[in-house]
């Protein structure tokens, strides 16, 4: 794919991925066929900042985990009062990384 397009994509969507994954995403995008561009561009990625805000206010109910698609962990948090509040606080620090990880997993099938 055209490197200008790829760099534009990385510029606008870099915040959705872990920094150590960005290089890999860029390399794979460059090697990708042009026909997949539309799919990549319209792929819905979750914003880590939104996840953090949800985590701070609704983390005890596991809504942050539901939001990023970690349904199993969401149910776990919901049914334990947010792990008696402890898990909810741990997730304030974990959720942004978890969101970026989920985004990376989401884009994987399109890159290969």
């Amino acid at each position, binding site marked *: 794919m055209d490197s200008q397009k790829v760099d534009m994509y990385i510029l606008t969507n870099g915040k959705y991925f872990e920094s150590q994954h960005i290089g890999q995403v860029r390399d794979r995008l460059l090697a990708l066929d042009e026909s997949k561009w539309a799919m990549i561009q319209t792929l819905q990625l979750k914003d880590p900042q939104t996840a953090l805000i949800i985590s701070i206010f609704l983390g*005890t*109910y596991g809504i942050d985990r539901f939001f990023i*698609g*970690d*349904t*199993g*962990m969401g*149910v*776990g948090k*919901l*049914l*334990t*009062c*947010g*792990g*008696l*509040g402890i898990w*909810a606080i741990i997730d304030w620090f974990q959720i942004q*990384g*978890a969101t970026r*990880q989920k985004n990376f*997993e989401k884009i994987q099938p399109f890159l290969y």
Partner: protein
Amino acid sequence: MRQSGKRIYLLLGGLALAGHAWLLYYLVWGGPEESSLLACPTRRLTGIPCPACGTTRSAAALSQGQFELALWTNPLGYLALAFMLAIPIWIAYDFFSKSESLKNAYQQAEAKLKRPEFAWPFALLLLANWIWNIFKLL
């Protein structure tokens, strides 16, 4: 941090273990009211019980053979105790038979829960339980 097998086993095993530790603490040292109220941050901050409030009291009642009291306190106690008893056995089974049945079951359950036909009844049941919780003033 990909949801590999190991992570799921750690998560579920840790959750079951923490449940046992908490239940033990509650049964040995916990008063009937104060400690259970302190446990839930929602209950402590707002005074309104959360959907899972009363699970400890329910599980404690169950472990003492008071099945009816457990059901009236919070039916989730049955679920919690079943989870706490089944998960260690399941993990041990997977460990000795070198299979990954628990991981597969977890992933299947998660995928199913994301589908609206399962998510909606689940959410509505929990919501009903929550409203019941608030009326019972757990």
